[in-house]
């Protein structure tokens, strides 16, 4: 892929969100808000223990309530056609595999009645012993199968000998807790089953309408054409809406039990801590061995994680250690234990976010051990080629991000001594960490282009804007690909009535969909020339992976953070952060800046706040609401700045862009935790870094 678009005119401009006015005036419908006639409302009943069997459901009191239309139970629920994916086996048996699993559901005329009735459903249980605590020596630890994906374990060179030879050795264990994605818009499915037409329509809060359609059609034994999924606007997902979850199945099941009436189901915030994925806790041991000059001879990264007995999801936290730094001897491993817990899943930068916390905290410890500046240590370990594949880098700009970032942040001249700077009662420190994220491309997206009677090009693709700015960015890409202005494009997304598109996940959306749009635009011009007749159309697929396989294609960045820790109270503040990134061409500086800032805030949140406390006795998340599961408030976010290196990477996509959704959270937590150490001299290796852990 070397052919570029014609000189971009729309891309690179800070176009304001096209749907912004509709959103702030309440006219942009989110899943729950679609104006549908005569809706019903669903409220689920969740298991209150972690493992065992439902021995009986008494719904008589609930059913007697006026306005209750149906109570679904394991005894009366529809038998599903395909439950190979056991997350979707909703109400299919009496087995309970985690605290918070669906065990019944009420559908009623109002949300209040549904909720009241759900509280009246009496469920009898038989409890079994459960196992919900991950430990580094858990007897159930196993090596996950990689099945076509990256290998669970890798080894290069003579690791053990190199560890013995190292002049400086850092050997520490870092842990990250269970974290929940918590997008602002709760997971919501509104389902309508039209019996005669045999048609199921879902208004869903999802990162992929086609992804949900495929899952739901299979579960219910329907043809793809029988299912339509609509999602014009989505209020965040951070990975948790990347696939259908059990609530999609439950809503559809309720709709099929009550044909002709839409069934609305929005999870409560508390229910989101049980049913829609989360980041596994991780326990990561990192060993770095370096010579006198700080050059890594050996890098070992072993990660222990959990998954659910219901369904396996491996979080590949040690992956980042395969490409970040040069080291002739290297080992990475992943081990997991399947526990009686909900299904874990994608959360912004799955793998990289926890993995780079551990690696970059260890690099900080190594810098201190070697007496080197942390920026310089990283520069000295820059690999010339990809340590995994030996391939040349497509566009590796880590060193520039570090150096320019350091300059812009005011890093240089930093006193390396920990706990040595004080302003009043506040201890002050700074920290740095690298960021990186692989360029991912999902093949198979299809776009159509049609020239309308109004002289505008309609560009359609079943992509989803999850709040990141896809409406705007894809319009800009289409405008440049067609050689018209952004006003000349009428984009349509968010509906399976539009052509196939991959998920908004893995920072791959704009790359994958944009490539399909560019391909379709070229096909359109090839077929219809520059002066098409009204009604002219073309359709094309980005079926092939267009990424140049001879190159290692990654994005890079560097985070800098200033932290203040109160010497009496342990309170931690982050007055300023700076992020410098290299992501190829930036399609829309305004929305990309937002993505970086949002990622950095989420990374700071990971450093200081987020922790889902799973109670070992009951198996539930004890602090599962926004009062106790903390994310930063406005008052916690200081002077955040980002910038990026101008560039384009045509080996990645025909737009020259790479993804931007995830890199902002990668490494951030390490930069903050490293700054806390610099401020206080206290090294906290178990996130989050809270006041009690630094209090002296």
């Amino acid at each position, binding site marked *: 892929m070397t052919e570029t678009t014609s000189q971009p005119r729309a891309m690179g401009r800070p176009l304001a969100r096209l749907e912004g006015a509709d959103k702030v005036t309440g006219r942009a419908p989110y899943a729950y808000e679609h104006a549908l006639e005569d809706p019903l409302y669903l409220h689920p009943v969740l298991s*209150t223990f972690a493992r065992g069997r439902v021995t009986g459901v008494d719904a008589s009191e609930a059913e007697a309530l006026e306005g209750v239309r149906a109570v679904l139970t394991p005894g009366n629920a529809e038998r599903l056609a395909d439950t190979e994916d056991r997350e979707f086996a909703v109400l299919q048996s009496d087995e309970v595999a985690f605290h918070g699993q669906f065990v019944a559901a009420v559908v009623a005329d109002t949300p*209040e009645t549904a*909720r*009241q009735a759900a*509280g009246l459903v009496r469920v009898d249980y038989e409890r079994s012993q459960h196992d919900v605590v991950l430990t580094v020596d858990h007897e159930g630890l196993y090596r996950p199968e990689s099945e076509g994906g990256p290998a669970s374990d890798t080894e290069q060179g003579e690791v053990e000998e190199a560890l013995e030879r190292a002049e400086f050795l850092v050997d520490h264990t870092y842990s990250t807790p269970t974290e929940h994605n918590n997008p602002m818009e709760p997971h919501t499915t509104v389902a309508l089953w039209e019996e005669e037409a045999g048609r199921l329509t879902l208004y869903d809060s999802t990162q992929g309408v086609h992804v949900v359609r495929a899952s739901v059609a299979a579960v219910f034994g329907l043809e793809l054409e029988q299912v339509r999924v609509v999602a014009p606007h989505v209020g965040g997902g951070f990975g948790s809406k990347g696939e259908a979850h059990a609530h999609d199945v439950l809503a559809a099941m309720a709709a099929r039990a009550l044909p002709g009436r839409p069934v609305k189901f929005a999870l409560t915030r508390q229910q989101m801590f049980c049913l829609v994925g989360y980041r596994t806790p991780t326990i990561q041991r990192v060993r770095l061995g370096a010579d006198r000059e700080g050059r890594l001879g050996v890098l070992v990264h072993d990660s222990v994680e959990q998954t659910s007995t219901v369904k396996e999801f491996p979080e590949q936290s040690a992956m980042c250690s395969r490409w970040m730094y040069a080291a002739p001897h290297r080992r990475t491993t992943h081990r997991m234990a399947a526990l009686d817990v909900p299904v874990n899943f994608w959360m912004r930068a799955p793998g990289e976010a926890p993995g780079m916390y551990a690696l970059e905290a260890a690099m900080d410890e190594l810098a201190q051990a070697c007496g080197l500046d942390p920026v310089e240590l990283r520069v000295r370990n820059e690999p010339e080629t990809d340590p995994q594949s030996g391939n040349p880098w497509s566009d590796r700009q880590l060193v520039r991000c570090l150096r320019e970032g350091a300059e812009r942040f005011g890093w240089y001249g930093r006193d390396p001594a920990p706990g040595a700077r004080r302003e009043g*009662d506040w201890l002050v420190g700074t920290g740095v960490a690298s960021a990186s994220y692989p360029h991912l491309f999902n093949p198979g997206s299809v776009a159509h282009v049609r020239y309308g009677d109004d002289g505008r090009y309609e560009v359609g693709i079943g992509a989803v804007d999850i709040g990141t700015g896809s409406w705007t960015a894809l319009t800009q890409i289409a405008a440049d690909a067609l050689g018209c202005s952004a006003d000349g494009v009428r984009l349509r997304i968010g509906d399976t009535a539009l052509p196939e598109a991959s998920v908004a996940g893995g920072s791959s959306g704009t790359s994958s969909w944009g490539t399909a749009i560019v391909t379709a635009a070229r096909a359109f011009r090839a077929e219809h020339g520059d002066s098409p007749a009204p009604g002219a159309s073309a359709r094309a697929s980005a079926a092939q992976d267009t990424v140049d396989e001879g190159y290692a294609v990654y994005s890079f960045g560097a985070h800098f953070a200033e932290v203040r820790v109160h010497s*009496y*109270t*342990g*309170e931690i*503040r982050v007055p300023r952060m700076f992020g410098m990134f290299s992501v190829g061409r930036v399609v829309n500086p305004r929305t990309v800046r937002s993505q970086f800032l949002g990622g950095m805030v989420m990374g700071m949140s990971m450093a*200081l*706040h987020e922790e889902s*406390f799973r*109670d070992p*006795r*009951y198996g*539930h998340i*004890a*602090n*599962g*609401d926004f*009062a*106790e599961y*903390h994310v*930063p*408030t*406005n*008052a*916690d976010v200081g002077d955040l700045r980002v910038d990026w290196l101008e560039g384009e990477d045509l080996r990645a996509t025909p737009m020259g862009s790479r993804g931007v959704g995830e890199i902002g959270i990668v490494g951030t937590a390490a930069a903050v935790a490293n700054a806390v150490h610099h401020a206080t001299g206290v090294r906290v290796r178990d996130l989050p870094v*809270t*006041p*009690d852990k630094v*209090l*002296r």
Partner: protein
Amino acid sequence: MRPFDYSRPAEASAAVAAVAGDPGAAYIGGGTNLVDRMKLGITRPTALVDVREVLSDRIEDLPDGWIRVGGAVPNSDLAAHPEVRRRFPVLSQALLAGASGQLRNAATTGGNLLQRTRCVYFQNRAMPCNKREPGTGCSAVGGYGRYNAVLGASEHCVATHPSDMAVAMTALGARVHVLGPAGERTVDMPGLHRLPGAEPERDTVLEHGDLITAVDLPHLPLALRSAYRKVRDRASYAFALVSVAAALDVVDGTVVDARVAFGGLAHAPWRAHRAEEVLRGGPTTEEAFREAGRAELAGADTGPGNAFKVPMAVNTLALVLRELTAEEAR
């Protein structure tokens, strides 16, 4: 949540009669805590009696130099009142440290005093909780312990009181006016909130049907030099890990009088009488302040989740008193 009756009587006496005569009835003021509990299904009133119309929302001077705060005065108004800010900085600061601007606009003075613990086990119907369902046990003991009490707890309950305002009022010695079925009476703070003992379901000494109509703030010159400091896991919108309300009267480098109360440590706002005793007649040195804090916390009973509260409370008290005396020195 279940259906409930709603009424808005025109007279306080009618409101009291309505609640006192119906064991399922509850008063509603701003509703900022009650409605949450109703949604969670942990408080299930059959009738709500709205008292915002019958209670005063005014702040008035009393002839003896006290200030009367109507039961329906919003937290925002109380925090912003010029005389409150001048005479009771500790109270204004405490109010502003609580909740968010939107909640403070809705929350009332009486309701703030009667808000219930946010203990995560109290708030979860699926969990045993003696406060919610007496006799079922306390699941906070041995569970998520970060917010658990370290002073005055019992084997039956380790919940903490969530209010900031009440901590300041406890330090000041506010007087609460109560209208009950038998007429009016007053309850002095501390004394409104109780420790859990064997009856953790009772947060206060009030009985069903009692209505807080006003809170009087005393004539207390030492409160001119007072402050509230709340330590929490983030900069805003979180309950206190530890908070300190303090006022000091210092003459010639010696503490003449002191008022100290802690939040986040106990089932009730914790008036630190022992700390006050240690402070009185002592020097204004940081070591003396720490000694006072250590004396108060000497009886703390901690677990792995909340042991940090002891040094945090001692440090925070020392910080607040040091800042108050630094002001004194200027």
